[in-house]
């Protein structure tokens, strides 16, 4: 196990810059998730850590060693790929023991390590099978087994659950997390799925266009997003963003462009007259027959546990998640209120969070 230090790393493909000076510190044993939309550079960053892409400039340290010039095999890392990358003509046991075989480890020792890893992952009965004889979930477990057997300092995961169906993805999510806690190995995990990031990570690094937008624990990112991008990216359904002006007319209100006026709890960072982007999460909008303002329902999406309602306040779209079961239809109006103390204020020009 080791810490990982990424210092001002940059990378270009030809004239196109993809990573623009990224710095992250990853503690020993920490589970860090790099998350962001497609093309944000998260996989490139992971591949640079693995040694599969050269580093344009900057430093990457694993433990005490600068690994910039080291071959992948010398970095003491193990990587799990999205498409499993199992060797098709080798059995599960041979796949898992391949790295040790190349290192010249004795067969008895390889067998012992493979059996131990197989037991951890529930693969003991599958050791003699070929990859094509396994299901997607089993293949992913073999890929993880191949990583575990090497006992590396760092695990790297490149969107490992993207090829699995939704149910299996949830199960594997929990499995990977518990395995990481059990082994205590430093883990860097790339995904575009913010739910994976929220549920698994000790620390999330949000990337956009090769730049870090925010680093923090899942709840820090959720509760105090640094900017509009993070606020919109983390959380599902996404945070509602309403552009308007703060007014103080018998209490703080957000006045939208359409003239609709919504009571809000004003934060320290804003004052009457300020133009802001006001963010509020769907679960912080509630039904309030007494003080709510009228919203016209556009779409109702019942999920069973909760109901997602897409509505319009003036000409602004808002999504709310209602825990209570309500019988409403498209075209009707409902009274909605924004829960006090849950609003986020962002600067309209930069998108940055305003001090509170």
């Amino acid at each position, binding site marked *: 196990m080791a810490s990982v230090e990424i210092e001002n790393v940059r990378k270009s493909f030809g004239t196109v810059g993809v990573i623009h000076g990224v710095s992250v510190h990853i503690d020993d044993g920490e589970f860090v998730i790099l998350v962001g939309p497609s093309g944000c550079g998260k996989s490139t960053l992971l591949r640079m850590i*693995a040694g599969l892409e050269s580093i344009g400039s900057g430093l990457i340290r694993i433990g005490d060693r600068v690994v910039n010039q080291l071959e992948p095999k010398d970095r003491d890392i193990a990587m799990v790929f999205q498409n499993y990358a199992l060797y098709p003509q080798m059995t599960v046991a041979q796949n898992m023991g391949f790295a040790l075989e190349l290192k010249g480890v004795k067969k008895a020792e390889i067998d012992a390590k493979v059996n131990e890893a197989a037991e951890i992952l529930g693969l003991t009965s599958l050791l003699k099978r070929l990859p094509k004889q396994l299901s997607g979930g089993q293949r992913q477990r073999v890929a993880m087994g191949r990583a575990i057997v090497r006992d590396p300092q760092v695990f790297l995961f490149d969107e490992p659950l993207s090829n699995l169906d939704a149910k299996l993805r949830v199960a594997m999510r929990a499995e990977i997390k518990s395995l990481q806690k059990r082994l205590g190995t430093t883990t860097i995990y790339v995904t575009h799925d913010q739910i994976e990031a929220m549920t698994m990570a000790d620390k999330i690094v949000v990337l956009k266009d090769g730049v870090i937008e925010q680093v923090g624990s899942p709840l820090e990112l959720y509760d105090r997003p640094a900017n509009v991008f993070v606020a919109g990216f983390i959380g599902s359904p996404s945070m509602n963003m309403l552009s308007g002006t703060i007014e103080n007319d018998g209490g703080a209100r957000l006045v939208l462009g359409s003239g609709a006026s919504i009571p809000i709890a004003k934060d320290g960072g804003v004052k009457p007259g300020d133009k802001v982007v006001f963010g509020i999460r769907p679960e912080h909008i509630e039904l309030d027959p007494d003080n709510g303002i009228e919203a016209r329902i556009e779409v109702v999406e019942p999920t069973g546990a909760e109901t997602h309602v897409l509505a319009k306040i003036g000409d602004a779209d808002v999504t709310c998640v209602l825990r209570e079961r309500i019988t409403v239809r498209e075209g009707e109006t409902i009274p909605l209120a924004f829960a006090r103390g849950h609003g986020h204020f962002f600067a309209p020009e930069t998108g940055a969070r305003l001090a509170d």
Partner: protein
Amino acid sequence: MSTTTAPASATVADAGYGSARRRDPVLIGLWISLVLVAVVWIAPFVFIVFTSLKTTGDVMTTGAFTPPATVHYQNYENAWARGDFSTTFTNSVIITFIKVPLGLFISAMAAYALARMRIIWGKLILLIILFGTMIPFQVMLAPIFTVVNSFGLIDTYPGIILPYLAFGVPYQVFILHGFFSVIPRELSEAARIDGASDITIFRRIFLPASIPVLAALLILDFVNTWNEFAMALVILQDAGMWTLPLGLMSFQGQFSNDYGQLNAAIVMTVLPATIVYLIFQRYFVSGLMSGAVKG
């Protein structure tokens, strides 16, 4: 209960017969055409095999497609001895058994390097190699003779094997390069992380994965090399170095009236290639397909 079951099963059976009767007329037409084409292709072989087993008298008095009344194996024995087939057969075996595996090995290594390793001017090198597939070797016979002669390799095994390699490698590289290019990149990356060198990745990951393509190329190359005539005629002038096709041509000139022996000689010449083809033809089709459309 029983009264309801019986009609139900009868209905199912009817439906089954009904669907079996509905044949696609296009498919039927296609099958008939294929059978006709197959007959046209097989007829000469039937003629050759039947004739090779007849006495000269039988050949003259019976129809071309009449099976031999008594099987006359003596034609094979006589043709083998009189045509010095032991020499030409040995030469063909030596040349084919060296050239085919060696050519495949060189092509596979080149294709791997060009498809998977970062090589300066890699694309240009590939283009130059592929340019070789565009030149019919008949055009190059005279220059090749000059080059081989200047190296003093006329009437030697290297003298014929090297030009065979030069003309065989390009199309093999072309097919293998296409196949290697569509093997997922992650497979070689996983192997690199596991500590494998390029040679190990080639040997342990890519070669086993490409067995069907290699088998297909092996058959194709075996048949081509075994039956090659023009270049052998130019380079191998000493009768002691002749290959089977050259021996057959000479035999044809000497014994053109003895149809039994002549056809026995033809059968002996094409039989090894045919056997290799029939054994591996399944891989041949799947290998070419996997090289063409995989991924």
